[in-house]
C-alpha cells in the first residue's frame, strides 16, 4: 500500500537537532537560550511558519569587566556582542569610531576613546568608551568596570536578548555575571484552510523567547538564559495559552510542518531516561475532514511533557468547547488525546499473519469523559500509527521518507504501538520495524501536499548559525559530542582555494599545524564525554595580508560533516597580529597587503629595530608593529 494512502503530507516540513546547555550550573558551552531561539525560528520558518512579531528584551544586563592592569593598547581590546549589535572596543584607539560590516551586511560599530580624552588606558576611559556604544559604564574599585546594557528596541538576532557575549582579547578576565533577558519572536503556523482542503481554521502563535536561568535564586553566569516556548492557539471559538515550557538541558530534536511543531529531548543531559516529564512539547492543528458528519472547523492540541499513546499531560481544545485537562487531575477526570488503532487488550502487539505490523492513518481523538466515546477530530499531518513498537527517536525510511518514532510505551497497558512522524531528514537510515502491509484505509478527505523531504533540513550539532566570525578569528559556537563513541572529534578548516587541515581536538592547548593555522580548543578533549566544546581558529597573515575567504567545516567522526559556515575573515582590526602565536613575518616587507579593500605596502618602520609599518599609513594597529625575524 502506498504511503500516501495512510499519510497526509503537509506542503512543508523541516527538521533540526540542537543542544541546549544554556550556561546552567555547569557553565555550559552549548546553545544558550538566545541561540536556541534563533535556531528554532529558522526551523519553523523553513516549514512555512511566519514570523509575525518580535519580543524585545526587557530589563538590563550588567557585565563586570575585570581589568587588573592597564598596560598597552595592543592588549586591551574587547569585542562585545549585545544581542543586536557587535562592538569592538579599544580604549587606546584615538581614531574616530569606525564601522565594520560583517558578511550579512550588518554594521558593527567600533568604539574608540572619545576624541581629546586623556590619558588613555584608564578605567574611566574604558567606561566612557563603552558608553558610546550604548552601554552605561561605571568604574568600580581600581580594577573593575561595570557595563550595563539596556534594550533599545531593535530587533536583531539571538533572541533579541540583552545577553552579553564578551570576547575579551587581551587582559579581559572574562564575564563575572549577567542578568535579565526576555527577547524572542512570535511565529505563526499555517491555518489549514489557507492552503487546501480540510478547513481547520485554528493556528498557533508560538512565542520563542528566553528567560533567565535562575538556580537557587541566583542568575547564572553569562549565557545562562534558557529557551522557553509559549503556545497560543488562535481561532474561534476559543483561544488559550500554554506558557513557559522551558527546554531542559539536553540534545533536542525539532520536527515542524505547516501545521505542527514537535520538540523532543533525544538525550537529556540531566540523566535519567527519555521519559522525564519535560521531554516533549508538541503543538498540532489536525487536518480536519470536510464533512457535515464531522462538524469541525477548529481543533488543536498541545502536549506537554511525556507523550504516550494514551492521554498524558495534555491540553487541548475542540470546537464548541474549551477543555483543559491534565492526567491525574484532582477531580478524577481524565482528559487527553488518543490515537485510534487496533488494540488487542492484551500485552502482545497486533500484527498481520507473517509478523508485520499494521500501518494506519494517525487519527486523533480527544477524550471527554470517563467511559464515554472519544471524539475524533482529524488526522495528524505527516504521521501514521503502527501496531508494532519502536523506541522513541528510532528511524524508519519507508519509500525513502524518513520517519521518527515519537511515541512512548504505555507503561500500564504495555501495548506496543508507535506513532511515526515524517521528519524531513535526508540521508537517514534506520531499522524501524515497519510492516509491509497496511489495511484498506479509511476515508480522510484531507489533501495531500507536496513532499519536501530534504530541502528544509537543518542541523545545529554543531550549530552553524552560531558560528561567529570575528576579526582575524573564527569561533565555532559548539561542537557537541553526544556519545563517547564519537571521539575523537576533528575540525576541518579550509581556506578557499588553499589547503585543508584536519586537526584533532586532543588537548586543551593550542596546537600548531602547518600553513599558519592555529587551533585552540577549550575544554578537556582528551577524553571526550557527552558535552559541548568550543574551538577557536586563528588565521595568521603569513599567506599574505588580505581578507580571507574561509570555510569552516565541523566534522564529527562517524557522522561526517555536520555543519559549515563560509565567510570573509578580514584581517583588518587592531588585534589581528597579536594573538598568541601570531607574528608579522619580516619577509613581508616590501609586499602588498589588502586590508578592508585598501592596499598597503609593508615596510620597515623608523621607530626602531624589528618594527614594521604599512604605507600609506593605516590604522593605528598597523603602525610600528613588532615582527618576528
Amino acid at each position, binding site marked *: *500500500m502506498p504511503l500516501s*494512502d495512510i499519510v497526509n503530507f503537509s506542503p512543508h516540513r523541516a527538521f533540526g537537532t540542537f543542544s541546549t546547555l544554556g550556561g546552567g550550573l555547569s557553565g555550559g558551552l552549548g546553545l544558550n537560550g538566545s541561540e536556541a531561539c534563533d535556531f528554532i525560528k529558522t526551523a519553523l520558518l523553513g516549514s512555512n511558519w511566519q514570523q509575525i512579531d518580535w519580543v524585545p528584551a526587557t530589563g538590563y544586563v550588567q557585565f563586570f569587566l575585570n581589568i587588573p592592569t592597564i598596560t598597552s593598547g595592543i592588549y586591551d581590546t574587547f569585542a562585545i556582542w549585545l544581542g543586536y549589535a557587535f562592538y569592538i572596543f579599544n580604549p587606546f584607539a584615538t581614531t574616530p569610531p569606525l564601522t565594520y560590516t560583517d558578511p550579512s551586511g550588518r554594521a558593527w560599530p567600533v568604539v574608540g576613546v572619545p576624541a581629546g580624552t586623556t590619558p588613555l588606558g584608564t578605567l574611566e576611559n574604558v567606561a566612557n568608551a563603552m558608553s558610546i556604544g550604548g552601554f552605561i559604564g561605571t568604574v568600580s574599585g581600581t580594577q573593575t568596570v561595570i557595563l550595563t546594557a539596556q534594550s533599545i528596541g531593535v530587533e536583531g538576532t539571538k533572541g533579541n536578548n540583552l545577553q552579553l557575549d564578551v570576547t575579551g582579547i587581551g587582559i579581559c578576565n572574562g564575564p563575572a555575571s549577567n542578568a535579565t533577558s526576555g527577547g524572542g519572536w512570535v511565529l505563526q503556523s499555517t491555518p489549514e484552510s489557507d492552503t487546501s482542503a480540510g478547513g481547520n481554521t485554528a493556528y498557533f502563535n508560538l512565542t520563542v523567547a528566553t528567560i533567565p536561568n535562575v538556580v537557587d535564586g541566583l542568575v547564572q553566569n553569562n549565557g545562562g538564559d534558557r529557551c522557553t516556548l509559549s503556545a497560543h492557539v488562535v481561532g474561534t471559538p476559543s483561544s488559550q495559552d500554554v506558557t513557559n515550557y522551558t527546554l531542559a538541558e539536553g540534545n533536542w530534536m525539532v520536527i515542524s510542518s505547516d501545521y505542527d511543531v514537535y520538540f523532543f529531548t533525544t538525550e537529556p543531559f540531566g540523566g535519567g531516561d527519555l521519559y522525564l516529564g519535560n521531554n516533549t512539547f508538541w503543538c498540532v492543528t489536525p487536518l480536519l*475532514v470536510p*464533512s*457535515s*458528519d*464531522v*462538524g*469541525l472547523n477548529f*481543533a488543536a492540541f498541545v502536549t506537554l511533557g511525556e507523550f*504516550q*499513546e*494514551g*492521554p*498524558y499531560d495534555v491540553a487541548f481544545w*475542540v*470546537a464548541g468547547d474549551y477543555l483543559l485537562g491534565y*492526567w491525574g487531575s484532582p477531580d478524577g477526570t*481524565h482528559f*487527553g488525546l*488518543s490515537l*485510534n*488503532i*487496533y*488494540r*488487542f*487488550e*492484551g500485552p*502482545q*502487539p*497486533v*500484527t*498481520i*499473519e*507473517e*509478523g508485520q505490523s*499494521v500501518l494506519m492513518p494517525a*487519527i486523533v*481523538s480527544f*477524550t*471527554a469523559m*470517563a*467511559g*464515554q*466515546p*472519544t*471524539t*475524533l*477530530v482529524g488526522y495528524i499531518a505527516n504521521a501514521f500509527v503502527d501496531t508494532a513498537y519502536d523506541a522513541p527517536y528510532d528511524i524508519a525510511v519507508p519509500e525513502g521518507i524518513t520517519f521518527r518514532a515519537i511515541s512512548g510505551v*504505555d507503561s*500500564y*497497558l504495555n501495548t506496543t504501538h508507535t506513532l511515526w512522524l515524517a521528519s524531513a531528514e535526508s540521508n537517514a537510515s534506520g531499522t524501524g520495524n515497519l510492516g509491509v*502491509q*497496511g*489495511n*484498506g*484505509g*479509511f*476515508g*480522510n478527505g484531507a489533501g495531500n501536499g507536496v513532499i519536501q523531504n530534504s530541502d528544509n533540513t537543518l542541523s545545529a550539532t554543531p550549530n552553524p548559525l552560531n558560528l561567529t566570525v570575528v576579526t582575524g578569528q573564527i569561533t565555532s559556537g559548539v561542537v557537541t559530542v553526544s556519545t563517547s563513541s564519537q571521539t575523537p572529534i576533528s575540525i576541518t578548516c579550509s581556506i578557499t582555494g588553499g589547503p585543508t587541515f584536519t586537526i584533532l581536538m586532543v588537548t586543551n592547548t593550542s596546537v600548531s599545524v602547518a600553513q599558519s593555522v592555529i587551533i585552540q580548543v577549550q575544554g578537556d578533549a582528551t577524553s571526550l564525554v557527552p558535552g559541548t566544546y568550543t574551538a577557536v581558529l586563528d588565521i595568521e597573515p603569513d599567506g599574505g595580508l588580505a581578507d580571507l575567504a574561509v570555510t569552516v567545516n565541523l566534522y564529527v567522526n562517524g557522522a561526517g560533516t555536520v555543519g559549515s559556515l563560509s565567510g570573509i575573515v578580514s584581517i583588518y582590526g587592531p588585534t589581528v597580529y597579536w594573538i598568541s602565536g601570531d607574528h608579522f613575518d619580516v619577509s613581508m616587507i616590501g609586499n602588498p597587503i589588502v586590508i578592508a579593500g585598501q592596499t598597503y605596502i609593508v615596510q620597515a618602520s623608523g621607530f626602531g629595530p624589528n618594527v614594521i609599518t604599512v604605507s600609506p599609513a593605516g590604522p593605528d594597529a598597523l603602525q610600528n608593529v613588532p615582527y618576528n625575524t
Partner: protein
Amino acid sequence: MTINYAIAEPMDYAIFPPQSSLADLIASIVSELTANGWVFVTTFTAVYNTHTETGTRLLATSPQGYEVYLEVTTQTTGISSYPNAVGWQLKGVGTGSVSPLVYSQFDTLSSTQYQIVVCPCGWFFSRVGATADATCGGIPYDPLANISGSGAAGAACNLGYAVTTELWWIMGQSGDAGPSTINPRSSLGLNLGSTVPGFTFQSQNAGCRNGVVVTNGLCQVTQLSAVWNEGTLGFISQPIWYGGADLEYPAFIAWQDNPSGPLAIRGQIYNATCRTGQYVADLIKTWGGYQWVNYTSDYFFGSLWCATTPVSSGGLNNYAFV
C-alpha cells in the same frame, strides 16, 4: 479514499420463520448455504459423545481458492441442559484439521426467528434481535496470498513467506444462555473494555492456518479503539467523529499462535466491515455500494456489519490489502 472490502458473491440475508423442528432448521440452513455458493458433499451419521447424530457436509470455496468443509449436524444430546442444538464444525479438505464443535441452541417457541447472512465462504448465524445462539465462521481473504502463493495459486511467487494452503475460522455461541464466548454478535475484540464484561468461553473459538488449529488463541474480530484513560485494560473507548458520525474500518479476523505471541491478523472477513459506532442488532443500512445488516448487538465499542445485497457494481473485487 474509501474502505476496501473483500467481496465474495453471491451473498444473501435470510430470516427463517419459526421452525417446527431442529431438522427443519438445519434443512433451512443447508438450503440457504447451497443456494449461495456452498456445495453439497454428503449426508452422514456420526457419533458425538456416545450419541449418533445426523449431518450434512458442505464445501466452501473462497474467491482465492481456499476450501473448507462445514458439517451442520443435529445435536440431540446438546450441551448442558439444552437437548437440541445445531452443531457447526469446520474440517480441512485433506489436511485433517478439525475445529471445535460449536452450537446454536434450537428453540421451538413460535416467536423465535433465526437468520443467516451467507456468501460462498462464510456465514453469520443468529437469532433475530437476540445475542444467544449466534455462530459464525468461514474463510477470510488472505492478504498474503498474492505474494506467498495460496490454495489456487500454489507455491508460485513465494517471497519468503510460508505458503498458505488452508485458512479458516469459527466462533461459537454468544449470549448468556449456555456456554458463551467471544462472538461479534455480542462484542468485538475481547470485550474487556465493556462496562459489563461477558463471560468469555474461549475454547469454542478457533482459527486454522495450514492444518494448525488454534483453540486458545483468542480468535477475534480486531477492534479499532481509542483510550479514554491510560491504565487498565478496560479503558478503551470507541472513537466517534465530533459531529456524531462513526468511523468505518476493515473487519479483520485474528488469533494468536500461542498465548505469548502477537495477535496476528490472518485476513479480512469477506462481505463484512466494522464501524466504531454502537447500533441495535439487525439494523439495515446502505453505503459503499452494498446493503448491510448489523450483526453486533448494541455493543458499546463498535459493530460488525455483513453485506447482504450489492446495490452497485463498484465494490466487486475491491479487495483489501491491494
